[in-house]
């Protein structure tokens, strides 16, 4: 079983929601990333989304754009990311890792070579922001054949018909984009999210994870009440930006932010103890 499916089935048994942090690999320099990943796991990450830096991150706001710039200035390439995952796997064989980014770096490596190498190093899922399901007919089957989940986005603007097609093709989990906009923008409306998730529940058994607009424990808790997973990006990347010149302080800063989210989410979704058998 793919590590993603494994992790979600464990969480379901425990009645808990997945906490999914996103950081950009190679930010502020490639040698720090694996250490940051371990820190995220220690603070309660269930799945790690590792951003592949790209020169033109059209779907991202300034926080992640700048992270891409720092990572690229430090020479980070997609092949380096794959090496990072291999290194991470030496001491963590359980935490699922999802690569998230844009298509062009994958195109340059070649779909087949990329899918094979990703599986080899222990990547569990790939989410390509600028590859909607209509354009996934070449890459997605290659990923699947190698046991790597092709993860897709659903947006507030997605029609029911499209959503059905996306659910049918999707794998691992569905990434629901909580708002119209780029990463790191605006404030999320949990009621609105819940309204959009309800029809998706009828279409699929895939875990529904929500990203965009999750900034702290409070927003994470709100989303945890209605979704299977909570994805936090810019709030964490901001901590890396704050400490870009003192990277040794980053793990602590990441743990503080993520730990808050973990506690708030678990508190918000804990089964009512009064009813529990003693």
């Amino acid at each position, binding site marked *: 079983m793919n590590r993603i499916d494994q992790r979600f089935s464990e969480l379901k048994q425990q009645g808990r929601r997945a906490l999914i942090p996103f950081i950009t690999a190679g930010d502020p320099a490639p040698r720090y990333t694996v250490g940051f990943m371990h820190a995220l796991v220690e603070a309660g990450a269930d799945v790690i989304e590792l951003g592949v830096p*790209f*020169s*033109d*991150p*059209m*779907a991202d*706001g*300034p926080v992640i*754009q700048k992270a891409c*710039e720092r990572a*690229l200035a430090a020479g980070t*390439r*997609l*092949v380096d990311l794959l090496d990072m995952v291999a290194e991470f796997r030496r001491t963590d064989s359980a935490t699922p890792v999802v690569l998230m980014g*844009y*298509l*062009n*770096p*994958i*195109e*340059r*490596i070649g779909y087949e070579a990329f899918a094979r190498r990703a599986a080899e190093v222990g990547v569990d899922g790939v989410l390509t*922001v*600028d*590859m*909607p399901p*209509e*354009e996934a007919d070449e890459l997605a089957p290659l990923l699947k054949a190698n046991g790597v989940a092709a993860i*897709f*986005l*659903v*947006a*507030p*603007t*997605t*029609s029911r018909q*499209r959503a059905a097609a*996306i659910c049918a093709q999707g794998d691992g989990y569905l990434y629901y*984009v909580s708002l*119209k*906009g*780029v990463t790191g*923008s605006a404030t999320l409306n949990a009621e609105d999210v819940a309204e959009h998730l309800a029809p998706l529940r009828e279409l699929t058994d895939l875990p529904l994870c929500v990203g965009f607009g999750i900034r702290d424990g409070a927003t994470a808790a709100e989303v945890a009440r209605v979704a299977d997973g909570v994805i936090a990006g810019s709030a964490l990347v901001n901590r890396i930006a704050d400490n870009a010149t003192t990277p040794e302080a980053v793990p602590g800063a990441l743990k503080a932010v993520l730990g808050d989210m973990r506690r708030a989410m678990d508190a918000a979704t804990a089964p009512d103890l009064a009813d529990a058998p003693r």
Partner: protein
Amino acid sequence: MPDARGRFGPYGGRFVSETLSFALEDLEEIYASLRDDPAFQAEFDHDLTHYVGRPSPLYHAERWSNALGGAQIWLKREDLNHTGAHKVNNTIGQALLAKKSGKPRVIAETGAGQHGVATATVAARLGLECDVYMGATDVERQKLNVYRMRLLGARVIPVESGTRTLKDAMNEALRDWVTNVDDTFYIIGTVAGPHPYPLLVRDFNAVVGREARRQSLEQIGRLPDALVACVGGGSNALGLFYPFVEDEGVAMYGVEAGGDGVATGRHAAPLSSGAPRGVLHGNRTYLMSDDAGQVADTHSISAGLDYPGVGPEHALWKDVGRVNYVAANDDAVLEAFRELTHMEGIMPALESAHALAQAKVMAPTMRPDQHIVVNLSGRGDKDIMTVAKLDGIEF
């Protein structure tokens, strides 16, 4: 025509984040319902005639032709259009689509500022709110057009990220569109971007080629031997070429920005440098990028050609060999700019001067009874500062 998925052979498509899929499906539907609608076409033609000033003349550059001592050079005078370039043909068309879709706000990306000015112009005319994204480098080198847009009531937003040129302006426009997709119509300025933009921008600019074909038959008495146009994203070139595609005797030349020379790597010529395929801004095409898939820095004296990609239909024409893609270097472009200005009293845009530079190479190798039609895509007023600086003149 592209296939149902918006592909021209292996190129094109719709590589966008999910949030935009519905807006593109909407646009595709609206355009499909209007493309063959006589009332829509009549409205478009009316605007082109009475607002843009079409048809634009096909002018015989006799003195320059004689000086070059070869083929006869004819200029398709898109510089005489309202707002000074071919860009207005497309913005008039897309403004009609914006009106039909009932959106109160339009956005655009611009390099040289010509597309921004054309968009600000139609927005003013229709009473639409208008924001234009422009790379900070281009804001600096195209100050005149920036001020024109502001006078027209548009907001010009300088983009500081990346290479601070056209591609970054397009990234920022896409970010805006994702955020404001409910009430905003994105007027893309060239035959690139996600389907259906490459199709509709080509359709709106094909008026250039339809006129040029008719005018050639009338004025030359036959079809020309060759067509030449500059290629940034490729909208003026496709506009001229498309109605001639079936005319096998007509050779076609797309001229990219050679910058310091294709061999130096400092250029913006994805097709003539043989750049690999890649995906950017919603379509698959020839794309200048490094081995790791990061989009490469480009260089050109002309802001309007300073783009690492090219429209997907051009990528197909390159592969099937219908169009020859070549590059003109900055030096040759400036020389052609000065020559046309001196000999014909027409000051071309630096973008258009790329096409002129190629005509200057070709004409002497041809006979005086042969004919070349060059698309004079825009006028050079906006570039006076750039040329003056090279002459050591500061205003």
